């Protein structure tokens, strides 16, 4: 069955190889690069969605002989992603804009648009798998666990899953690079971007200040409120991060909490980071019902921890078998069972 598929192509090696695979499978493929209005870097290296990336994406599509277009999503980026990102920082939380982008833009507005244009599917270069389970589409981890990106995909609306393809599901990053090299795609050796695309290279501080977040020195305090030192601005810290205080000679200190209103960063010893569980809000489910027990990841690099889950109204309560450290408000908790993604939500607070 030949389908009409849009590949969301960024100019990186992953989406380029995904486009190639779709073409080889015989689908009618069109490449679309999302233009997010991210300003071109002067001098330094380019970022995702910059002019250089769009040129790379165009070149790959020319080589693959598929049509290529760019579409402007700068308005959506501002409305759905950047505004929330700033609001979350203002509340002292550490947001994850990539999750929101996948929900609202890639697999939201873009998917709706290409559906309206008559396409059957949208595909991306994510390391993730779309499987069928009990007659429904189910999101599953990619073969290479180290590269698995389902953490960033868990918030996609469930009804969108039927229209999504992940051509790299069974490949490792190395295999993807080999395919790119074997097919002489000019992006085979490109470095991965790890940064948030709309944060300029001058860094978080400059960006947050430009969006009226007050980044100014404040106090490091312990749980009892004793002042231990001076920090550079609460928005530059995240829960679990090592806090370096000038002149501090005691045990290493870690960020336990952030008080945006008072511009205070609460610090404590490593043991103080541990919490038995968490409460999460804005929960998105990709299954009908949650099992009583499953595995939870509390950040992208987290290995996952066995837990019990239940709902308290709209609030998801996760209680770990073993206490976990650095539970960060604003980050996501994502639930897994047997390699399948059950859903997830935004961490509101650690349970005590």
């Amino acid at each position, binding site marked *: 069955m030949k389908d*009409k598929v849009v590949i969301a192509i960024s100019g990186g090696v992953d989406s380029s190889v995904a486009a190639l695979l779709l073409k080889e499978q015989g689908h*009618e*493929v*069109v490449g*679309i690069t999302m*233009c997010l*209005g991210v300003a*071109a870097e002067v001098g330094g290296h380019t970022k995702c969605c910059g*002019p250089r990336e*769009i*040129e790379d994406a*165009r070149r790959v599509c020319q080589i693959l*002989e*598929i*049509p290529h*277009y*760019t*579409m*402007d999503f*700068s308005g959506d980026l501002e409305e759905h992603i950047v505004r929330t990102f700033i609001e979350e920082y203002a509340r002292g939380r550490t947001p994850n804009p990539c999750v929101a982008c996948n929900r609202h833009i890639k697999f939201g507005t873009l998917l*709706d*648009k290409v*559906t*309206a*244009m*008559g396409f059957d599917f949208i595909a991306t270069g994510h390391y993730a798998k779309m499987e069928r389970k009990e007659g429904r589409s189910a999101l599953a981890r990619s073969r290479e666990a180290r590269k698995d990106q389902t953490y960033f995909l868990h918030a996609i609306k469930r009804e969108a899953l039927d229209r999504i393809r992940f051509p790299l599901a069974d490949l490792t990053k190395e295999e993807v690079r080999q395919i790119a090299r074997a097919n002489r795609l000019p992006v085979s050796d490109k470095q991965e971007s790890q940064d948030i695309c709309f944060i300029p290279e001058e860094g978080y501080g400059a960006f947050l200040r430009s969006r009226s977040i007050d980044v100014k020195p404040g106090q490091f305090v312990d749980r009892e409120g004793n002042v231990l030192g001076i920090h550079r601005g609460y928005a530059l810290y995240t829960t679990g991060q090592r806090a370096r205080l000038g002149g501090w000679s005691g045990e290493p200190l870690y960020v336990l909490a952030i008080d945006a209103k008072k511009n205070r960063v609460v610090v404590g010893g490593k043991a103080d980071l541990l919490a038995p569980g968490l409460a999460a809000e804005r929960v998105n489910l990709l299954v009908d019902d949650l099992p009583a027990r499953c595995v939870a990841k509390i950040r992208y690099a987290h290995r996952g921890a066995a837990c019990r889950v239940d709902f308290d109204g709209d609030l998801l309560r996760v209680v770990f078998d073993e206490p976990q450290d650095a539970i960060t408000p604003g980050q996501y908790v994502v639930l897994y069972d047997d390699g399948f993604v059950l859903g997830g939500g935004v961490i509101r607070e650690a349970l005590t």
Partner: protein
Amino acid sequence: MRLIEWKTMKRIYLDHAATTPVDPEVIEAMLPFFRETFGNPSSIHSFGQQARSAVEGAREMVASFMGAKPAEIVFTSGGTESNNFAIKGIAWANRKKGNHIITSAIEHHAVMEPCRFLEREGFEVTFLSVDSRGLVDPCDVEKAITDRTILVSIMHANNEIGTLQPIAEIGKIARECGVCFHTDAVQTFGHVPFTVDELNVDLLSLSAHKLYGPKGVGVLYVRKGTRMEPHMHGGEQEGKRRASTHNVPGIVGLSKAVELAGKTMPGEEARIAGLRDKLIRGIFDRVDDVRLNGHPERRLANNVNVSITYCEGEAMLLSLDLMGIACSTGSACSSTSVEPSHVLRAIGLSVEETRGSLRFSLGRHTEDHEIDRLLDVLPGIVRRLRAMSPAYRSMTAGRGAGG
């Protein structure tokens, strides 16, 4: 929609304002100047003399077409260079006289950017606003002129919305005030009949590839007695006004294209205007909430520019292109900017309306059935895209409630 044929399908080209296909007769005329008559017109020998003869013949052809003298024709690399040369050449030559330039808010980038460059060099530029149909008011030009004004530059027809400006009137005012007057006629030369004297212009830019000639060649008409500072320095070509070895095949191609335009212009423009009006009527009959951008009467015969609300130009353009119909939009995301069209903003469109803009520009080979095909597919594309627009849904729901 079948994409399999994307590379080979029969296509409908409705983007003649961007560029036109080179006429086969033009190609034929150019070929000998790549092969046998390849000489450098600046050379003294017979090879050079033959090439020179071709260039001078072309100069006479272009000059007579616009009622100019051959010595007033300067060959350039195209419209952008002609505009740059006109504006910088006048500004630099008249530095002592004044530093004020008047232009409009809807000029092509090839006029806007040289003006902005000169602003950084210390010149003052007035960007005149236009009315909702894209017209410059000649009275505004008159009011803007000061004793420091050295140049007025107003385009003949706008490339996006097709509005034809009252160039003759503006030229008359400029002349009475003793100010040099330039017009960018890239969209009109060879399409709209005129002479430089009728238009009262001192400088006029044109480009070959907008009239079925090759890319990379154009002309700047410079009225005799107009002082210009060269912007290309080197050899003594073009009466020392523009150095660079002549692009002989290009110049010959331009000349042939002008000759062909002279033969076809009157009948062709009427035919194309008929298709244009059919397309405008057809869109208004089949799609609701459409607005025609530009002037209802004073517009290029080949230009249709509409804003289709709650429908993104990009998505419509992409859908049409996948069906083999090529057009353009005022809100395209290029690799360097996502700025909506300055022209559409200048005639008062909201950002939302610029996003829903589409430009169809017809040409010599546009046929009736191609317009029919476009009118067949466009309503369905609009309907599907609007169905996913929350704003359109709530707007139509509101209408229903209101009866």
